[in-house]
């Protein structure tokens, strides 16, 4: 997060103001004093204190712990039996839920999983005041879907090369389109872009010019 400059009356008030503006307690940000300020006589001729504050990024282990707790709590409240496992302790942090009958958490085309992922991110960000890359998966669903999209992208790229004709994929979510773009980003012979608006946005794979 960015640095923030706070101006307030001399004394401790600048820190209190910083706590209020950031919604954080003193131990969650760094403070650099720019100017101590001076108190004037009867409030006249004083100088305001200026400090710069910068929120501290919580250690990754804290994020892993909070995210695991939040997800476990949500499962309990939804009465879904599942065990939360940590796939990656480093950024991007990855959690996965394992258990029986978890289809209910995935939903049609992964819609429920997308909602769960979003709510966990929101709650973690709300508690830690930072937005860190974090992903929630259910029984490896996203992983399998990502892998099959990557395979599809590579197969279609081959087709575009051999037939010298562009290929347009079916409409996909921003997340899915991103996977196709990333998979082919370093491809020597084809390039990708997106066409259309909203839910109809589609990826086109075409030969590089020249």
């Amino acid at each position, binding site marked *: 997060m960015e640095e923030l400059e706070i101006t307030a009356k001399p004394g401790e008030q600048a820190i209190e103001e910083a706590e209020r503006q950031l919604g954080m307690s003193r131990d969650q940000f760094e403070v650099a004093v720019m100017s101590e300020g001076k108190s004037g006589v009867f409030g006249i001729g004083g100088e305001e204190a200026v400090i710069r504050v910068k929120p501290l990024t919580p250690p990754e282990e804290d994020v892993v712990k909070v995210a695991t707790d939040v997800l476990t*709590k949500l499962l309990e409240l*939804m009465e879904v039996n599942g065990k939360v496992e940590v796939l990656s302790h480093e950024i991007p942090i990855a959690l996965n839920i394992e258990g029986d009958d978890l289809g*209910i958490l995935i939903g049609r085309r992964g819609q*429920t999983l*997308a*909602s769960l992922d979003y709510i966990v991110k*929101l709650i973690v960000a709300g508690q830690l005041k930072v937005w860190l890359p974090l992903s929630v998966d259910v029984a490896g669903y996203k992983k399998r879907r990502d892998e099959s999209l990557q395979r599809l992208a590579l197969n279609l790229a081959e087709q575009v090369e051999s037939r010298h004709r562009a290929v347009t994929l079916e409409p996909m979510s921003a997340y899915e389109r991103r996977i196709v773009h990333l998979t082919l980003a370093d491809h020597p012979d084809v390039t990708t872009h997106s066409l259309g608006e909203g839910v109809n946005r589609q990826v086109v794979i075409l030969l590089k010019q020249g």
Partner: protein
Amino acid sequence: MRELLEYIVKSIVAEPDKVSITEENSDAGLLIKLDVAPEDKGRVIGRQGRVAEAMRTLLRVKAAKDDTRVRLEIL
């Protein structure tokens, strides 16, 4: 149902004390009414209703477990 919504909402608003949730049973299932502080309204609705929609989706998981239907209204 109430506990699930309460946990999510209180975790994302600035004023958890002003969160109020009421439940009404009808033939069409459960109707949940959510009220929050005016400045928190944006947080529980989200851009293009994204947060509200995600909360509804998770409530539906619990409703399916309870074999009922649920509607969420944000006041």
